[in-house]
């Protein structure tokens, strides 16, 4: 279990990184699937071009938030050529920490009545 401070040091995560983690939380995916998923969830508000995506992936790999997967999903969904990525426990913790951080920000904003509490 990585120490809490180590996770804290990664925060705040870049929006792209958080979106990738959220996407991978549902299962292993390759680059194209990640972008399609993110675009779908954010109603295309977040566009991810290859350069941006792979640079983010590289940083996340270096930081140990994700890893390349040797396992393949169901054969009919498989695409031989592509690398699949999956989230690491460290990645889950970082995503949770980031979401908690964002929640704190939202709570603060609500307390100050910047946004309406629902």
């Amino acid at each position, binding site marked *: 279990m990585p120490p809490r401070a180590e996770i804290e040091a990664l925060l705040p995560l870049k929006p792209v990184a958080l979106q990738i983690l959220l996407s991978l939380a549902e299962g292993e995916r390759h*680059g*194209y699937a990640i972008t399609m998923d993110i675009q779908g969830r954010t109603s295309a508000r977040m566009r991810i*071009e*290859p*350069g*941006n995506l792979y*640079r983010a*992936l590289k940083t996340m790999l270096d930081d140990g938030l994700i890893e390349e997967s040797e396992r393949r999903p169901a054969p009919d969904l498989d695409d031989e*050529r*592509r690398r699949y990525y999956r989230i690491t426990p460290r990645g889950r913790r970082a995503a949770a920490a980031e979401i908690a951080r964002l929640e704190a920000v939202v709570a603060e904003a609500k307390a100050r009545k910047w946004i309406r509490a629902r």
Partner: protein
Amino acid sequence: MDPRAVGLYRRLLRLFPAAFRHRFGDDMADLFADRLREAETRGRLATAGFWAWTLADVSAQAWLERRADPHRPLSRRLRMRHVWDDVLAAVRAHVRRPGFASAAVVMLALGLGFNTALFAVVKIVLLTPLPFPNPDRLVMLWTGRNPDGTGGVNSYADLVTWRERSQSFDALATYNISFMTLVRDGDAEEIHGSVVSPEFFRVLGARFAYGRGIEAGDENITFEQGRPIVLSYALWTRRFNADPALLNHTIMLGARLRRVVGITSPGFIHPEPFWDADAQYWVPMPVTDQMRTAHGNRYLRVIGRLKAGVPIARARTEMDGIGHQLMTEHPDSNRASVVVDRLQDDLVGDTKSIALLFLGASSLVLCLGIANIVNLLLAQVSRRRAEFAIRSALGASHLRVTSQIVIESTLVAIVGGLVGLGLARLMIQAIVAEAPSNILGLTRTAIDGGVIAFTIALSTATGLLCGMLPAWRVARARLGTSLGGTRMSAGLEVSRTRTWLVAAELALALPLLVGTGLLAESLVHLQRVDLGFDPSHAIQFRVTVDGDRYATSEADIAFFDELARRLRAIPGVTSAGAVSSLPLGGLNNTGGSIVYRQPDGSEATLSVGMRSTTAGYFPSLGIPVRRGRLFSMAADDTNTIVINDAAAARMFGELDPLGRQIRFGQAGVADKKSPWLTVIGVVGSDRHERVSTPPNPEVFQPYQSNTWGTMTVVAGTDGDPATLAPAVRRTMHDLDPRLAVVNLAPVSTFFEGQLERPKFGAEAAALLAGVGLVLAAFGIFAVLSLLVTQRTREIGIRMALGSTRARIGALLVRESMWPVAAGCLVGGLGAAALARALGSELFGVTATDPMTFAAAIATLVVTAMLAVWRPARRAMGVNPIAALRAE
């Protein structure tokens, strides 16, 4: 999907660091292909947008990735530290070799100084817009062109037609020179201004500090009612203490009342400086019926504002058409079409081409400086091979070794640029003090932020340029091999480059010399021109007789009569007279046409200069009487006229002009007001307008028949005319203290004034050429002496094999003359181009004058010979044994 798209994308991916590309490149290309396919289903626009996004993504991310790459050699900060270290090292290197550094600084400071000064001039004269709204829409309209390229003045009748028929202009205004005497607090002063049509201030978009401009109807207000006048802000502050209460009050000018209706805003200037000064007032132009119909009565300037969006070319075509219509309708008076110039171009005149030529010449001097520095640096590179090799062996990258050289040269250049700025300040002071004063804005030339930025940029570029070739040499040389020692003959290739530098320097210097030679020769010709009168023994001043005492012609005549009598009484004055327009005096507003009878009896018209003179004028200026007699008070000279040589030759050829009759006006047009006049005398012709233009036909009327308000009084002297100035002024004051004595000065000042510009040009060129020649000589000497040093061994062998000293000397001279010959050839072509560009500045000498070219080439060859002499003599004294041991 086009398969080439993925190929292109892969190529783009090279922007990323190799490691990143190897790891993710394939995946990225796949992803790209998927996305592209998807985009293509959404149409062309989406595809184009996708490509734009992709380009932005790749370049931005690649840049970010590279910046974050921990494996790249140096961080930014570390690299900056290296540069700083190199700068310090360069300073230390220069301190160690103060000779090179100071020589380089001086050579570059000269070139950069010249360029800075001339850039400052060009900037103010050519790049600063005129102080009017939308100045690019302001144009001057002229009738034909004078031989010197300036526009010809216009008639009011023509202007009326132009206004009726043209479509291109918002408005056309006309104006003319005016001057009046302002008497205030017992002090008479002549002030200069302009008579303007009501459109004048509107055309210029003038603003007023108080009141208004001249408007339509102003010219019909009588003097008793107070005819309107607009004062310049400068006059209002200077003579009326900036008193706002002056507005709508009347002031006395001459003998006439004028009502002040407006004061211009401080920034407003007249579009043309008269007599080196800005206009101080503006008054309405009265229009007579005669002005509306006399197409040949030309003395007006016309300024117009183009309608918004109308290009000047369209106005030109239109006005040329109207001009040709007028030429058909009035063949007697209209011989030339209409010319449309931009106001800016007219004001700048040929200053533009001259300023650019000199900027070109000073860049040649800068190039000579650069060539010398390159030369010195190349010599240093050969000498410092070991140093560079050691640094390289200790792990310095190629880039650092070469960048050191470039940093050193840039440092020198920037210091040179700073010194050059100081030099430029001195030069600009000289230009402002010496340069002809009638060039717009020249006196405002100064070193400002823009000029400093230019100098810094030019210095930096110069420094980089200087360092480039030597740095490239070092980079190409295998430094590692140089550690073993420095063989003398190793620099042979460097030497060859430097030999061609000699040729380049000569090619740069030759145009400078030729240009100077041509300008100097023109100046000598101008100084020796026969003006047709003697300017050295006469003093002159201008006077305007107005005021209640001079209400009649008789009073005017009596005044000039009495003045001449009193002037002649001054010891040292031999004669005295008056003329309406003094030769070279800058006042040539008295032209017109006369009618004469040709041998076959038919009438013909001739354009002439018309002067009103008293009899004493001709002897006072030393103008000879060729035939007949001058006017005299004794005879009745009411219907007589004196003409000059040029007029006699044009009208009557070889026939005797005496007793023949001429009249003012147009052939075939009867005019009862212009009676036939009898020619009673012929005088020598003088150059009236410019020293460089041949005399024009002129006719002289006796003052009694044509009294002018403003006359130039001339007194001939037997000694230095300048010493008589106080006596002349006293005489005038005694006669009438209320009349202003204007521009009291020897007549020679006008002649000298006209030579100001060619003199200044020749001097400036001589300075540039002198500096250029010294730089070239320095360069040639440096190259050749090093060449000889490097060939010491070869010379030793030759001598050991029995060659004589004389032969060695001859060999060296012969070999060094090859680049000299090549340089002269290329330089000669450059010089020919420059001489052609000088064109209108030349007088009495052709642009291809063989003597000038020969002299310039001879100067260079002799300089080269002198430069080669010392090294050659040293070579001849070489001891063969010592030479062979030298390696």
